[in-house]
């Protein structure tokens, strides 16, 4: 029998080791899976994780994929700190893309420097609005934000599909469900010639720094953390709960919206039905994997972007289904949750350590550190 024994105080070391351990376990499971599918595990892992980034173009593509994930995840770090379970980054991203596209298409004939900022702001507003809906439903009606944000995701997706079939459809597009290509003044400039890496990555890195300062130095960030860890302590101290819920959701929504508009005004250049291969959901995993810490999230984002590229590469090179990406994402999150038990508990096998007293400290707190 294996027993879990409370540590008393949770282990900082384990909090950071756990994601690494989860990554290793995912790789091992992946290798076994490849073996079962008749592939050489080492070749397959190489195709998945090394080959996609073995040249400059690959590295640039990694950044292209990383930018939207990073923006969504860094916003989620803020709401999840407040224990507001915004599962709606995907919908907020789609709305950002939709509203940003509407703006870009409305300004399609204008060539001016202010067009791009206007498009980006419109995108952020789209995401912010979608998150504001969830915030309103939660603060005014106490509606569970997990369910409302999920529902808003499905609604956003259907609205997006509706608009590319209807109002935003390219009139000269042979009835394809796509918008017209944006004008050049609504397109994010690329950073390196010959690649698709664009200004969005700079925005994402800037957001990382801002959120880092917010969470570690500002009193607002402190209040958000207290609300998440212990809402009744926050209430007694006089922190305004609803205001904090609003602020954190709006930050997260605006960043997801920016991610969405960054896609349509960046690598895609028009509105299409599939602007996101689930970046908003991947960002949830990234936020947990990065321990809701900006630096951790940055690292986890790169890994997640790599898994996306690896999935595509595995499809091309090995003929494996592209759904491999989703499978790896799921495994990663599961292993992470399982390994996180080591933060608050140590594993003890009574048969091996009978009678040995283990030094530690007093009571237990069982909430996992998310």
């Amino acid at each position, binding site marked *: 029998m294996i027993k879990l024994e409370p540590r008393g105080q949770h282990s900082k070391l384990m909090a950071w080791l756990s994601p690494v351990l989860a990554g290793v376990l995912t790789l091992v499971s992946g290798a076994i899976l490849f073996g079962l599918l008749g592939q050489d595990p080492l070749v397959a892992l190489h195709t998945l994780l090394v080959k996609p980034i073995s040249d400059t173009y690959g590295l640039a593509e990694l950044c292209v994929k990383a930018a939207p994930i990073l923006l969504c995840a860094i916003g989620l770090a803020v709401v999840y700190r407040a224990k507001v379970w915004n599962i709606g980054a995907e919908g907020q991203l789609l709305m950002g893309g939709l509203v940003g596209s509407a703006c870009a298409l409305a300004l399609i004939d204008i060539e001016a420097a202010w067009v791009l900022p206007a498009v980006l702001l419109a995108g952020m507003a789209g995401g912010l609005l979608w998150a504001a809906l969830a915030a309103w439903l939660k603060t005014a009606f106490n509606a569970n934000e997990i369910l409302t944000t999920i529902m808003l995701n499905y609604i956003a997706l259907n609205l997006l599909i509706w608009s590319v079939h209807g109002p935003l459809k390219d009139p000269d597009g042979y009835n394809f469900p796509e918008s017209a290509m944006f004008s050049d003044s609504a397109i994010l400039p690329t950073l390196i010639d010959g690649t698709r890496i664009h200004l969005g990555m700079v925005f994402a890195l800037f957001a990382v720094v801002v959120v880092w300062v917010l969470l570690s*130095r500002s009193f607002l960030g402190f209040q958000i953390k*207290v609300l998440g860890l212990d809402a*009744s302590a926050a209430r007694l*101290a*006089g*922190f305004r709960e609803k205001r904090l819920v609003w602020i954190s959701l709006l930050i997260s929504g605006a960043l997801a919206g920016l991610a969405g508009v960054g896609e349509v005004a960046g690598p895609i250049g028009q509105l299409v039905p599939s602007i996101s291969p689930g970046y908003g959901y991947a960002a949830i995993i990234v936020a947990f994997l990065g321990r809701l810490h900006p630096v951790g999230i940055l690292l986890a984002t790169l890994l997640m972007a790599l898994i996306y590229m690896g999935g595509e590469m595995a499809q091309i090179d090995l003929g494996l289904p592209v759904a491999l990406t989703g499978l790896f994402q799921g495994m990663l999150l599961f292993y992470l949750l399982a390994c996180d038990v080591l933060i608050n508990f140590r594993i003890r096998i009574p048969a091996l350590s009978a009678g040995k007293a283990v030094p530690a400290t007093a009571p237990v707190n069982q909430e996992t550190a998310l």
Partner: protein
Amino acid sequence: MADTQAVPPAPPRLTLRGITKVYPGCVANDGIDLTIAPAEIHALLGENGAGKSTLMKVIYGLVKPDRGELLWDGLPIEVRDPAHARKLGIGMVFQHFSLFDTLTITENIALALGDDAGDLPTLAARISEVSKKYGMELNPEREVHTLSVGERQRVEIVRCLVQPIKLLILDEPTSVLTPQEVETLFVTLRQLAAEGCSILFISHKLNEVRALCHRATILRAGRVSGACIPAEEDASSLARMMVGDDTPISTDYPKVLGEEPFLQVRGLSRISEDPFGVDLQQVSFDVNAGEIVGIAGVAGNGQEELLAALSGEDQIENHDAIHFPSGPVGHLCPRQRRSEGLAFVPEERLGRGAVPDMSLRENALLTGFLTGLVRRGMVSHGKVRAFAEQIIERYKVKTPDSEAHAASLSGGNLQKFIIGREIMQGPKLLIAAHPTWGVDIGAATAIHKALIELRDQGAAILVVSEDIDELFQISDRIGAICHGRLSPLKPTPQTSINEVGRWMAGDFPQADAAA
């Protein structure tokens, strides 16, 4: 009323030999020996954390001891689980009741009895019969959430009595009762003992043990530190056995009366939003600068609601109902009331007074943010650390450093930290809820001294507590709350535990506006 009859020389009902239980970081029980004879009322005395709870969980099969043996009617036995304990005839009344609010009394008891419960109507009849026999009338059809705390305890006791019982364990049973209810409980327990049932009575209240128990075993830090016949000891010799020689036992404090009212509550009424809550009805009282006012009461009589109204967590429609010298504050949020000089020590230390998973440093900032620790929205981490370290030093909080998490501190140490944090902000009014529950005597004394010191500096202090002895010790004026109504306040020297006990049961004239 002390019953000092000799213990009958029968084979012991229960014998414990060398019971040892180790938890990570502490030895809860270290080689404990104990015998209980049939028909004996045996006290298990000890401070919080002495190992009483662990020991009784061992007897009840909830905890497996690491070493030691247990003899039942002279035969070695291993109690596998609570169901097995019940089969043997062991019953237990928990301190934090193990009842389910949304179920009826019958359903609750049926759950515990398992397959022996039989059909519900028969069981209900048996419950009525047993509860009548022992003077604890209950209606088996009522849902538990409609019961008072005292009635819930009756359910716990009756649950043990509907089956043949040989040993009844009661964990701090009197902490939720009025002094008069305690008397009634003792009558029942003596009746049970007279019928041959052994009783293990766990307590830290010395007078009760002296009044009720035939023999006592005293635990300190997980070991047996003494055994005695309580009726032959006095309270202070018992206390010495509990705390050892080096801990100061609390002293008497001079009583004073303040003159300048700081907090004025006038006709405070509030309908509770929680259907299980208590409505406040026309509560009026003053707390003067330079005095401690104590409010006694059995849990669940409106204390939470009163405290929430005073802290600002609940805001009051009638702004005038709560007055500070600066004006009405009923509509102000906790933060605004803090800037008017309020400090607040809540009942729940972990998870309200302090955030369990934050360091002491961060917990210092939790309520200390109005004292210059935040500038332009940014936290001055250096100042926060200095503030936390000051609290730790001045109030002798035992912790490795200010980075230790609140959850890693013992109850007493954390409470010293929280009270220190509030006092160091120089409050003009301190409200403390149950400031010493669950803390060891050393910490309780330190907390009392800190409160008295603050009073002598001229602050108004309100203490709400279920511990009537504590209130008599530190309060300058005292009253009691019952069903959301507050008794008149009297200077402590002019009243008695008996009178306050009657107030706790609601026996006082309708609220007059006096204070």
